[in-house]
């Protein structure tokens, strides 16, 4: 018989006689918890009700494994390790209440940063008429979203939760390309101030740029330099500086574009490229091509501060070289260093002077913090006679001025090793800032722990202060008496770059940079999200995830200086304007023998002015292909768009229809694809040595367009949005006539090709092969003129429908 053999068995049970009284606790009746018996060895009594073990059938919950694991905050883990894994105090303010189950979001993508509130809208998905959206309305289609969960939320219910407005944003690319992305949705300035796109190389710079852009004296100095011409183009320069440009120049162009863009989004592409190729920037490790994905909190702050110093120093040297100017007069702090032995017999004494363009803040020692606090508010603790004042309470009154004062008067002791001496002693090194500039740039170069101190202060950044000059030494006060007024200067806070940490300080790739700027009111700039924000939120630094990094104060007297924006009416007549490049050749490298010149330079009689019509077309080569992720069901996700580079630009006179610009742009970097069948550009065309075309530096080509733009010229072309975007030029709508827009059938939702239009409307058989930008510009010009002709005859609509 096959069966389980049993160790013990009885024959069969006899009828049970009257049993002895069994002891309920007798061992043989007991079952151990882990004994190998089925749990159904004990039966159920008869039941006529629903069992208690039932749960409501409508009870539902998320499958636990569908949730991404939350992980434990790295700071807590570290603390636990230091503590030997024992019980520790829990900081509810920092980590949030315990035992909370977070709302479930389906995990998407590689970043674990919450992006539930970031719902990028596509213009193509807007309901029908592109209706107006007010600031915080519900997002259509997401009915359950309530107002304070929008992307513009700046205050959350819980101090440990970062408000949505600081989220790291992502541009999403629909099948219509980046133009379809609804940047407008994210700009709440009513078209006043522009946002900057991220997901480009070095986009971390955005934050600092927005800060400087709003300092009028800084802005004016930078853009003023654009009036000069600085177009290095000799071969040696080109090999290290392909663009033939400079940090100063590119910053100038960028500032100008940021003004012209009004509320539209701007790319920092050209500026970022020049940074990437700058050997000093490379040496200082300022190039970041992966959205700071591998940086922790301290790394991020160090990066932006290093860049700040690089930027100021580079701009200064560029100003010297290009226009014999400098930023020192607006930004320089002078200092004095005194070295003396602190022992009477030590003969060491030295005094030297120097200057810096930005000041690093240091944390004062704690006794000074206490002392300062009492001085700031001497009446704080007098009432509490019973209790001695708490150190914490005292400290809460400390603000940035204490740090500033200490940082400007530092004393360091180092061991003296200068000479043979009987007794070891120290050298006292005293560094004192002796003058303050109108634009005071402060680098908050503190460690993570030092920032924790700042979290405890009630109000660390203050909106204004007075710097009182006391005999080569400065003291800072929030208020002054009339007595001090004579030798004091009032400073107003312009704004600051702030680091936002979305996870523990040690986590990589979880930290972003935003900017707060005080204009007519305070604004937050988070890449392409720009919105007003109340001052009390700006200045609230009590949360550990918010760390100011670069702070700028300006002297009140110059803070209201008007911005010297370029405008069409006055540009052409500006006294220092050098627009000679429009009227001459300026080739990169050597003069090319026997090149075919397909254009004729402008003459002075032809000086472009407002409303002068020109036709333009550009060709591009592919520097970097787009980075895609593809899915088996056909879905494609664009991770990084392709990077095109201007290779050739042709501009035609509107009246005479002849070319006056036909520039090929020199390239020394590796080109991924010349796109010859589209661009007509051959391999050697852009090579500084081998090219047989009229090769110029990128800045040369750009400057010509920039001049035309500022002179008020009207550009005619086909599909100009993409062209100007790649060139990095912000052209106001009224200066564009785009034949692709005119000849647009909305029910096809598709733009019609140039060649097709030419064939149909102009009855021209265009050459079927390579593009030629002169020809294309010409064709666009013809189409435009045809358009004017048809509209004047009232026949445009009918022709289009045919």
């Amino acid at each position, binding site marked *: 018989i096959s069966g389980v053999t049993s160790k013990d068995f009885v024959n069969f049970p006899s009828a049970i006689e009257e049993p002895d009284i069994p002891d309920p606790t007798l061992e043989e009746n*007991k079952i151990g918890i882990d004994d190998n018996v089925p749990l159904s060895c004990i039966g159920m009594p008869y039941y*006529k009700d629903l069992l208690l073990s039932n749960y409501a059938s409508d009870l*539902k*919950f998320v499958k*636990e494994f569908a949730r991404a694991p939350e992980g434990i905050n790295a700071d*807590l883990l570290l603390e636990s390790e230091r503590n030997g894994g024992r*019980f520790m105090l829990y900081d509810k303010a920092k980590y949030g209440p315990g*035992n909370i*189950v*977070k709302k479930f979001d389906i995990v998407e993508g590689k970043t674990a940063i919450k992006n539930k509130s970031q719902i990028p809208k596509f213009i193509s998905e807007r309901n029908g008429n592109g209706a107006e959206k007010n600031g915080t309305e519900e997002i259509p289609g997401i009915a359950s979203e309530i107002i304070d969960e929008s992307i513009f939320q700046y205050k959350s219910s819980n101090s440990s939760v970062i408000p949505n407005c600081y989220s790291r944003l992502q541009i999403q690319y629909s099948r219509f390309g980046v133009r379809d992305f609804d940047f407008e949705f994210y700009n709440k300035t009513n078209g006043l101030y522009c946002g900057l796109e991220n997901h480009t190389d070095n986009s971390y710079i955005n934050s600092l740029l927005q800060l400087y852009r709003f300092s009028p004296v800084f802005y004016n100095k930078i853009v003023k330099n654009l009036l000069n011409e600085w177009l290095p183009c000799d071969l040696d320069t080109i090999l290290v500086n392909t663009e033939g440009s400079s940090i100063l120049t590119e910053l100038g162009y960028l500032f100008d574009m940021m003004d012209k863009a009004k509320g539209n989004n701007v790319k920092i592409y050209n500026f970022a490229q020049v940074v990437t190729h700058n050997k000093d920037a490379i040496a200082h490790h300022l190039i970041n091509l992966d959205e700071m994905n591998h940086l922790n909190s301290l790394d991020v702050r160090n990066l932006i501060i290093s860049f700040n110093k690089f930027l100021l120093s580079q701009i200064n040297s560029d100003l010297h070289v290009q226009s014999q100017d400098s930023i020192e007069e607006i930004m320089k702090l002078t200092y004095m260093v005194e070295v003396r032995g602190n022992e009477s017999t030590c003969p060491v004494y030295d005094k030297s002077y120097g200057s810096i363009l930005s000041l690093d803040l240091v944390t004062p020692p704690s006794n000074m913090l206490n002392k300062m606090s009492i001085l700031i508010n001497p009446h704080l603790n007098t009432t509490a006679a019973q209790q001695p004042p708490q150190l914490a309470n005292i400290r809460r009154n400390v603000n940035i001025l204490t740090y500033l004062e200490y940082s400007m008067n530092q004393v360091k002791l180092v061991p003296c090793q200068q000479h043979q001496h009987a007794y070891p002693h120290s050298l006292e090194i005293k560094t004192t800032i002796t003058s303050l500039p109108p634009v005071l740039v402060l680098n908050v170069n503190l460690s993570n722990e030092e920032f924790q101190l700042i979290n405890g202060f009630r109000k660390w950044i203050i909106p204004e202060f007075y710097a009182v000059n006391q005999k080569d030494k400065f003291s800072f006060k929030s208020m002054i008496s009339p007595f001090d007024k004579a030798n004091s200067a009032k400073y107003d806070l312009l704004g600051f770059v702030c680091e936002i940490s979305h996870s523990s300080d040690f986590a990589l790739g979880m930290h972003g940079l935003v900017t707060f700027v005080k204009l007519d009111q305070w604004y937050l700039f988070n890449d392409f999200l720009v919105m007003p924000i109340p001052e009390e939120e700006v200045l609230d630094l009590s949360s550990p995830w918010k760390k100011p990094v670069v702070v700028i104060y300006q002297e009140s007297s110059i803070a209201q200086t008007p911005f010297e924006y370029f405008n069409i009416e006055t540009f052409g007549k500006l006294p220092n304007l050098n627009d000679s490049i429009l009227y001459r050749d300026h080739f990169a490298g050597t003069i090319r023998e026997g090149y075919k010149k397909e254009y004729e330079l402008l003459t002075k009689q032809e000086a472009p002015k407002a409303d002068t019509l020109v036709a333009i077309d550009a060709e591009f080569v592919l520097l970097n292909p787009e980075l895609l992720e593809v899915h088996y069901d056909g879905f494609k996700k664009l991770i990084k768009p392709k990077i095109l580079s201007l290779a050739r630009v042709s501009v035609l006179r509107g009246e005479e229809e002849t070319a006056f610009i036909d520039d090929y742009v020199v390239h020394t970097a590796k080109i991924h694809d010349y796109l010859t069948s589209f661009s007509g550009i051959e391999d050697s065309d852009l090579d500084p040595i081998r090219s047989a075309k009229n090769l110029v530096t990128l800045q040369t080509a750009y400057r010509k367009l920039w001049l035309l733009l500022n002179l008020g010229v009207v550009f005619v072309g086909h599909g100009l949005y993409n062209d100007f975007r790649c060139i990095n030029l912000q052209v106001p709508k009224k200066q564009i006539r785009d034949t692709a827009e005119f000849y647009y059938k909305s029910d096809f939702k598709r733009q019609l090709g140039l060649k097709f239009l030419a064939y149909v409307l102009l009855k021209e058989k265009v050459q079927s092969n390579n593009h030629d930008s002169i020809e294309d510009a010409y064709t666009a010009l013809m189409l435009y003129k045809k358009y004017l002709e048809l509209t004047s005859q009232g026949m445009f609509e009918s022709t289009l429908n045919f």
Partner: protein
Amino acid sequence: PQAVPPPQSSTPNPYLNDYFHTPAAATYPLQYHLYAPQPPPRLTLPLAPHESNPHLLFIPNDLRETLHRKNEATLQTMVHSTLPPSINQYHSLVPIDRTYQESKSAHSTVLYKVFSSLDGNPYVMRKIENVEPEQIDFSKFKKWKSVDCANVVRCYDAFSSLSFGKSCLIAVFDYYPNSNTLAEHHKKLGSAPINDEILWGYLLQLVNAVKCLHEKGLSGKGTINLNKIIVTNKDRIRLSSGSISDLLGDEDQDPLDDIHNIGKVLLELSTLTLPINMRSGNIYQTLKSRISEELIESIRELVDADQTFELTAFQSKLSSQTFNVINKLQHANDFMEAQLTSELENARLFRLMTKINYVMSSTNSPELKIIKLFHDHVFNCYDERGKRVVDLSKVLVNLNKLDCGIDEKVLLVSNDDNECIIASFKEIRDIIDSQFRVISRE
């Protein structure tokens, strides 16, 4: 370690002996639907793929209920029985209701469920009345006993007995609780569906049975008909009472008859798919509207089999269907294994929770604190709006991780948010284990 805890573990069920089974058991049938009622699908809230509800986490109700009823059937006893208390080592006779019994032979058969005192397992005892010992032919019985076929009910024992008064033949088979015959399953109950897939399954199972028998030189004789083939599990049939015919010394039969009978069984079942008025005439033709031609052809071949028929050749033709069945069986196996895994885990987790509850009800000690915090972590959570969270999936997974003692760390925060500790599941489990040991040795 035991793979399967044998039913008669060394630890007896202490309460079985202490209760008596009143007629109450018979007069108050259990209302199974109260156990874990589930609303019908059309009234059930739809779930997103990432969501679950209490029913989905555990063994499906219908499977559980079926098995419950089988257990109940197995445990059924008769009180105040007039039957002999035992026959040889078989005791606790309970008649199995088989209303379909056709008494074709001269002998009437009665079926009982019995238990063996040798191994404590249930068996079916077939009693064929009015058989004298000398009439019994045991010559083929050992062969019958050795048939190990999933589609033939196995036999174990055969003897004559006087326990009922007059001499009768007793044969002992495996007991399949709550099984019924094909006739009952498809005809009388009326609801079990018949389609191509099921018929192919039956065909293959019957062929398998007959193959096994013929290999041993045995034949199915009268057992291949709708009243003798039993349905023991879902879509699973077996030949019952196979050895009886030989024991009773019935004439040998042409093995071909087995083949014909298979065909007839299938034909009869196929015919049930037709409305009553159409069940005559050229059946094969009419059936084309209900089942596949391939199946009809196979049935025909079986019914009309002659001397040229070769079982192996016939089997070969079914190869495509055969592999379908192999596929299905493997899938079914995987399904059962998954259910079993889940329920075995539930047992472990129940024991773990029992230990935790023992430990937590102890007087306070420092180790207790961490266990209480873990308990809060699992059972005392809130959502972001302050509402208490009831999440069975979270409980299951966390206790599972605790039971396995994985290295993953978990942050435990006290209720007042003042203190916290980071510990791995392994550490917490070790603490529970050691605390429990302390308690059990107290």
